């Protein structure tokens, strides 16, 4: 049996899935924001009650803990050491009060241009000591090409730290500002995350669950619990990804498609290209801060079941605000669900209260209640549709860098739309515009299903300058000497091999075939008309996917 839990902002969902029988138990509870641990333990107990917990072979957990800590600024005081060399003024990248800008520079080829100012590091460290700082982050420019400066900083910090995050360990991606921010937040949530995990392990033990635990990431994949302890920042924004993975498990998606997860306050929109979810290559943004955390592309707009209906300049609008629950659920202002109730599209809770609210609001306008409800529903649908078109437009206009892609590039034209979330069934009945609309079964717990069934994901990038005889894979700590003849084929084989070895060592369970090369390039470098070796770059990943499908 596989257990999945998704701790969301408003609800926590849990499912228990039997490999043969499918979903055998599901449980939904309101999330107690101030006690996530209790929420998780309750969900665990309830969803497994009546089942033999010894039969559980895997537990996957998606939690908003790190997200909340960052968004609500409940962060541990963290010192950030950055070194940037020439470029944008590094003072732009200070976070918190303890950012130290250290002189030193590494260029885009990974050459050291200027050594680190070690005197300044010592001075900064004594200041940190006086302020009682115990967690640190180090990020230097081009550390993914040469990590010596980050290593030197970490060494200098030594054991005065409970934890040091080094930027190059988080991602092979270029982007110094994202590296600095991601490293900082990783250290700043490190302690709160780890104590939460300790408590979860205790809770699982009490219930008798001994299966391995994995944590869900924003890219729709999992990481082993032990790994997540070092990179807790990777657990941010996993909720939307869980829902998307749930849809994959519940439907067999093969075409270009749109996925809508319609919740209480927002609708999340994701796009699939030829059946695969699109990944935000640069990394996701949290609270407006770009990070290196890989994520499934996903956009949220302020339209959901509880979005309030308003009259603005005689026009009927819905959202983006939520003024408590809809009237059918005891609220005071009519919301989208009330309009759907009034139109008879759904029968949700107290329909009389919905009618009351819609009629009262209609009186304030010159519309009949029926017209008002219809306009509210149409407004919501139009809003969602406009946003879908905007996203598709952005995706299809995304820059490419080769003539081949310019000329033969694939354009995404969705053929199907999948709806999940509370008001999904209702909206599916009114959202018709030539596109096939599907509402998978069990859509109300798609997020927990996605959590339960998500597989491992991982990404590495190998970089080699054969002129210098060097090959590195920054985020898994590989650095090797190679010959001048080192070829792209060898680089691809190495990228696969080292990635597999690293994953096995770290407790990931994968097959060799799970690792795919997604980008691979070789540039002949010329100095003064003479060949000076090759610039090789190989990116490989373990793609997001599910361990089993639930649809027939």
């Amino acid at each position, binding site marked *: 049996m596989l257990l999945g839990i998704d701790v969301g902002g408003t609800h926590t969902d849990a499912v228990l899935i039997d490999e043969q029988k499918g979903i055998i138990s599901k449980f939904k509870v309101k999330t107690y924001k101030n006690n996530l641990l209790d929420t998780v333990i309750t969900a665990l107990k309830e969803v497994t009650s009546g089942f033999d917990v010894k039969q559980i072979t895997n537990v996957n957990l998606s939690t908003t803990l790190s997200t909340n800590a960052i968004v609500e600024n409940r962060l541990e005081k963290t010192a950030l050491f950055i070194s940037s060399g020439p470029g944008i003024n590094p003072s732009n990248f200070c976070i918190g009060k303890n950012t130290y800008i250290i002189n030193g520079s590494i260029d885009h080829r990974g050459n050291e241009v200027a050594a680190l100012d070690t005197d300044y590091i010592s001075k900064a460290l004594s200041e940190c000591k006086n302020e009682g700082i115990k967690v640190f982050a180090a990020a230097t420019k081009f550390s993914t090409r040469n990590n010596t400066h980050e290593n030197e900083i970490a060494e200098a910090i030594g054991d005065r730290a409970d934890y040091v995050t080094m930027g190059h360990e988080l991602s092979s991606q270029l982007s110094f500002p994202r590296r600095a921010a991601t490293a900082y937040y990783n250290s700043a949530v490190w302690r709160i995350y780890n104590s939460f995990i300790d408590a979860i392990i205790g809770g699982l033990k009490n219930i008798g669950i001994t299966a391995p635990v994995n944590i869900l990431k924003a890219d729709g994949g999992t990481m082993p619990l032990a790994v997540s302890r070092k990179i807790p920042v990777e657990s941010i924004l996993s909720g939307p990804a869980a829902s998307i993975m749930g849809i994959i498990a519940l439907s067999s998606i093969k075409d270009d498609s749109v996925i809508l997860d319609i919740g209480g306050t927002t609708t999340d929109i994701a796009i699939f290209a030829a059946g695969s979810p699109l990944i935000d290559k640069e990394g996701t943004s949290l609270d407006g801060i770009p990070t290196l955390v890989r994520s499934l592309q996903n956009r949220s707009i302020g339209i959901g079941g509880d979005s309030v209906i308003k009259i603005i300049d005689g026009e009927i609008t819905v959202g983006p605000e939520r003024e408590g629950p809809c009237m059918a659920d005891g609220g005071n202002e009519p919301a989208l669900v009330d309009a759907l109730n009034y139109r008879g599209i759904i029968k949700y809770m107290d329909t009389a209260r919905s009618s009351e609210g819609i009629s009262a609001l209609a009186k304030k306008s010159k519309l009949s209640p029926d017209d008002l409800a219809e306009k509210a529903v149409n407004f919501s649908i139009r809003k969602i549709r406009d946003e879908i078109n905007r996203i598709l437009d952005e995706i299809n206009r995304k820059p490419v860098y080769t003539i081949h892609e*310019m000329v033969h590039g694939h354009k995404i034209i969705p053929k199907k739309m999948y709806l999940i979330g509370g008001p999904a069934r209702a909206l599916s009945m009114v959202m018709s515009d030539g596109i096939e609309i599907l509402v998978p079964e069990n859509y109300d717990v798609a997020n927990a299903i996605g959590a339960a069934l998500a597989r491992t994901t991982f990404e590495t990038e190998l970089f080699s300058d054969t002129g210098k005889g060097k090959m590195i894979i920054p985020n898994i700590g590989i650095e090797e000497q190679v010959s001048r003849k080192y070829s792209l084929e060898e680089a691809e084989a190495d990228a696969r091999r080292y990635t597999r070895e690293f994953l096995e060592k770290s407790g990931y369970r994968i097959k060799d075939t799970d690792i795919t090369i997604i980008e691979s390039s070789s540039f002949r470098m010329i100095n003064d008309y003479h060949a000076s070796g090759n610039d090789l770059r190989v990116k490989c990943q373990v793609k997001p996917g599910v361990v089993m499908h639930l649809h027939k």
Partner: protein
Amino acid sequence: MIKAANRLGLVFFPAYDWAISPTHPEREERLLYTQDQLREEGIFDIKGITELKPDIATETDIMRSHFCFPDVSSVTTESHLISAGGALRAARAVMDGEVDRAFALVRPPGHHSMKCVHGNRGFCNINNEAIMIEYIREHYKTRRIAIVDTDCHHGDGTQDIFWHDPDVLFISLHQDGRTLYPGSGHLREMGGPNARGRTINIPLPPYTSEDGFIYTIDEMVLPILEDFKPEIIINSAGQDNHYTDPITNMNFTAHGYALLNEKLKPHIAVLEGGYSIQGALPYVNLGIVLAMAGLDYSHIKEPDYDTNYSPQDEEITDYIKQLKKPVLDNYFNPRPDMERAPEGEFTLRHKNIYYDTDGIQEDQREYIMTCKNCRGLLYIESSSSVNPPCVGIDIPVNGCARCTKEGYKLFDKAVKQGNFRTVQMTDRVNKKYERHSR
């Protein structure tokens, strides 16, 4: 998070799968390290900076600026259409108000491509800036345009295309033609008979440094621009004046390029040459991007700046100071063209053009009408080592009725005569572009 003072559109198209030849400077990885630097700096995360995908220029876009012999597809590949399309996208973004400024970081370059195209000259087949300018004039109300070419090589192609056009001011700063390809760009080259003083050449001595370039901008370029009052300013942003460039002899810097750009305030910049792809381009491009976005670029410095850059000699400073007067005179008091034909008649110019990359020799007879009502009908007969005689006819933007009528008369005559391989009509008045091939 950093916010740009000016909204900037970046059309980045490195053409990673295209090279002139395997060891040619114009090869696949030319912009690879620039992209690495821009991505590592987080340029694309800056609020107000948007990355734009190039358009693909159409045959019409190219025929508006060029006479391609025997036809467009024979002298262009997809790479050229995308590079020119990158400039078009940049122009659209600015003209439509999507952004305040735009920088087309595209390759291959274009500023050595002239009005007639038989092949590749100086790494260029078609002229990205010229195609962009004619696109702007066809689709928007903008008429007065200035191009400042800061590539180390003389922008002889752009000069040729706008030679007869008084509405387009072309200013080229370059290493003196006596010391570098293509050998032209002397002070005396100052525009055709109907557009005297609208071509301004500033040949700078080898080893000109930051001071020399900035002096040239402050004392020559800016006063001229202030008088000309262009509606938009375009910068042909070649980067081969850099002190590390392998094929030139100048002594300019990334910081200098950024400062130059800040002073010039171009609405659109288009990358031209620049072949120090590791030591210069990442820093120069970063400098230009930050300057165009109105951001602080003071922290940009090449890794070898302290050891390999030195300010210019006093001799060079003095030489450049002496250029000021003749340069300003060329614009403010241009000598009239003594050979200019009387009203209603053509002035003839003979031209021999060598295409270094493709080894083509071209012979041209170019006729420009002296007209009191428009900038004059253009008629060119051109033959080359790869093409038998061809004809190009250009009825200019706002061309008068007489020039239009005369243009079609010449077109019919050339077609009827039957001995021309290609006859191209570029009718900017009626926006009609046709080609008759035999």
